């Protein structure tokens, strides 16, 4: 019972957040709506008993990605964040059509080919087990991922830094 109610509430929150995030004119509002979406999604993960993933979701997306987006907006848009130009791109209608098509295609397997819905068996996933899995069979993946993150970090810094200003430019005038 609880689970059903929770599912509906959380999914509505998530969809609402996502919609607002992609439609809002004011980017800062958009980011916060996106964060609401992330929060709803992490609630759904919790509902699916993937608590560690839920925590990571909050930590990474809301904690880190959100801040990053805010800073990017601060650096690119006007600080107020609202965007008075035309926000929708050319031919948005076709975009919607394609989206609808994709939606149908996404639903096709869910309708046709999946076995009839079966109930989830009760499980007790422990974070410890996850850690062991990460350290034992997936350790190479983990290392590669660490490498990727480092590379991404350096790449991001170098890309965002751009050409360095000559010294006399930033001396007091």
């Amino acid at each position, binding site marked *: 019972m609880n689970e059903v109610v929770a599912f509906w509430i959380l999914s509505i929150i998530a969809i609402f957040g996502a919609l607002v995030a992609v439609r809002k004119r004011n980017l800062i509002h958009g980011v916060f709506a996106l964060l609401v979406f992330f929060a709803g999604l992490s609630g759904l993960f919790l509902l699916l008993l993937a608590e560690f993933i839920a925590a990571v979701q909050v930590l990474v997306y809301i904690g880190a990605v959100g801040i990053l987006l805010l800073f990017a907006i601060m650096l690119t848009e006007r600080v107020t964040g609202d965007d008075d130009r035309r926000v929708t791109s*050319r031919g948005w209608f076709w975009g919607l059509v394609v989206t609808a098509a994709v939606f149908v295609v996404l639903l096709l397997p869910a309708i*046709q080919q999946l076995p009839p819905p079966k109930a989830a068996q009760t499980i007790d996933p422990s974070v410890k087990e996850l850690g062991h899995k990460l350290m034992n069979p997936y350790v190479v993946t983990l290392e590669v991922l660490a490498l990727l993150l480092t590379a991404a970090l350096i790449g991001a810094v170098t890309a965002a830094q751009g050409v360095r200003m000559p010294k006399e430019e930033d001396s007091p005038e």
Partner: protein
Amino acid sequence: MSTTTLALIPLLPLLAAALTCALQNGRRAAGVAIVAMLASCGLALSALKEACGMKPTDDPLTFDFEWLTVGNDTVINFGFVLDPLTGVMAAMVTFVGLLIFIYSAGYMKEDERMARFFCYLSLFAAGMLGLVLVNNLLLLFMCWEIVGVASYLLISFWFHKPEAAAAGKKAFIVTRIGDMGFLIGILLAFKTTGTLTLYDGGQGLLELPIGATVLGLKASAMISLLLFMGAVGKSGQLPLHVWLPDAMEGPTPVSALIHAATMVAAGVFLVARTMPLFENGGTLPVVAWTGAITALIAAFIALGQYDIKRILAYSTVSQLGLMMVGLGVGGVAVGMFHLLTHAFFKALLFLGAGSIIHGCHEEQDIRKMGGIWKPMRVTSIAYLCGTAALVALPFVTSGYYSKDQILAAAWEEPLMRPVFWIAAAASLLTAVYMTRQCLYVFAGEYRGCKTPHESPVTMTTPLVILALFALGMGMVLEKSIFAKLQGKLIHDNFVIAVSMAVALGGIALGWLIYRGRALGQAADPLAVTPLVRKLWFDELYAATVGRLWALAIVIFEQLNELLHFVRDLAVLLADRIGNAFAVGGDRKLIDTLAFDGMCNRLRSAGHAVTRPQNGFLPGYLRLIALGAVALGLLVSWMK
């Protein structure tokens, strides 16, 4: 000797290549490459020792593991094989390669792309060693191609010289012709036997009896002929020999490594490796004849050349021909024996030539040399040793023993008597042109502008070592390796007499011709036009293949013209009609339909095509999504 140690032999140079391609400093790159080569040389020697330990009868050691599975039962193994053949070959390649690496460390010192050069060299060595060691025809083909690429890179290393670039392209394309045959052969072999593993405990490609027939020919015969095409391309046999002399545009160490010792020998090695197929298919006479003719013609051409390296190149071609003869008449042992000895003395000759060229300030024309003997003592002695070996001076040189075996084997076969005589003639010519060259280079006065000087010690040391090998190797090999390769020594006094006769006679002949001539100034009696022009092989190809191409072009031109004509006709017709019905409506109708309308339609079609490519990113995204949709529909429809 385990898989890993065996695998390390090719892998170390590969690693070195990977390392050096990152390096900038040429000297450091050279160090890396040489160290890697040294290590794999040690490994190869130990492998050789183990291989020699094996009795000739028992199966070769194979180290296989599953590489990729085709369908559900066919497995292609990734593996290495170790038997005397591979052992010897690997040892030779690594050893000569090592010497040449050291040599080129000195030779390329001034070049600013030295590091890149060593990267290519290491890559080549890796490919060559892989080619030698692998136990799988497909893998062998891959290594074969790596070697091809490396040689392309190395030949056109000084790509700013247009002829160097052209030579690289030529080598690549001409060998490609042979490789196509090779590839087809592999496919055919896979089709008929279902395996590409060479030795597989009785199930290998070389161990299965192949009974099937293709196009009325025995399958094994077909396969072996196709493989032989690859060999012909790679080791410059007639009619695909034209790339080898041009390849001399590359740096001299490259010529020594690739076009004397290793790569060109790859073809011979291939034939030796797949010898069972040839025996099974009974196609050895083809090999023998091709080799013989090549040997003779190449030797002829060599008489007329002035470029020191070209002469050596043609002599390489003819020696390769002799190896083919050896394989054809005497089996693996004879051919490989000559291959080994030749590798040493030809590498020596090329390095010597390189040293001479270096000493004469990058002068390659023998007419502008002469009197090198005095300033460049070490080089000259080494070079003369190499010459002696090539000419096969009796008893003292290694070339003598191997060539003697070939001739003897040819003499044994009653059917192969003509081949024997051709080979003898070829070696006679060999003696002649080598004498000519030596006289040009060493005797008399220096005819160049600047005074020649001796090369640095890094270049001379390999020369000396190689010279020792070129002299001493014959005895040693004949005692040790020859038996391992299931060869039976034949000593036929008549043959010995003949080979001595041709060697000494050739030298004498050359001496007689060139004695007391004002070399360089006066016309050369042997450099008659056909020889200078290399018997018009290039012109021949230009005249045939090129002509065909030109013809095709002409035909298409004509077709094009026809189309134009039809179009004009249509225009004319419409115009006439328009004029005929000189009524506005009609004209408008015709116009709009026939001309403007059509043109507009075409134009708009062009626009329609270009519209999606306007850098409008969301549009791209949508197209991608459409593709995804199509894919999803396809999948769910196929379910």
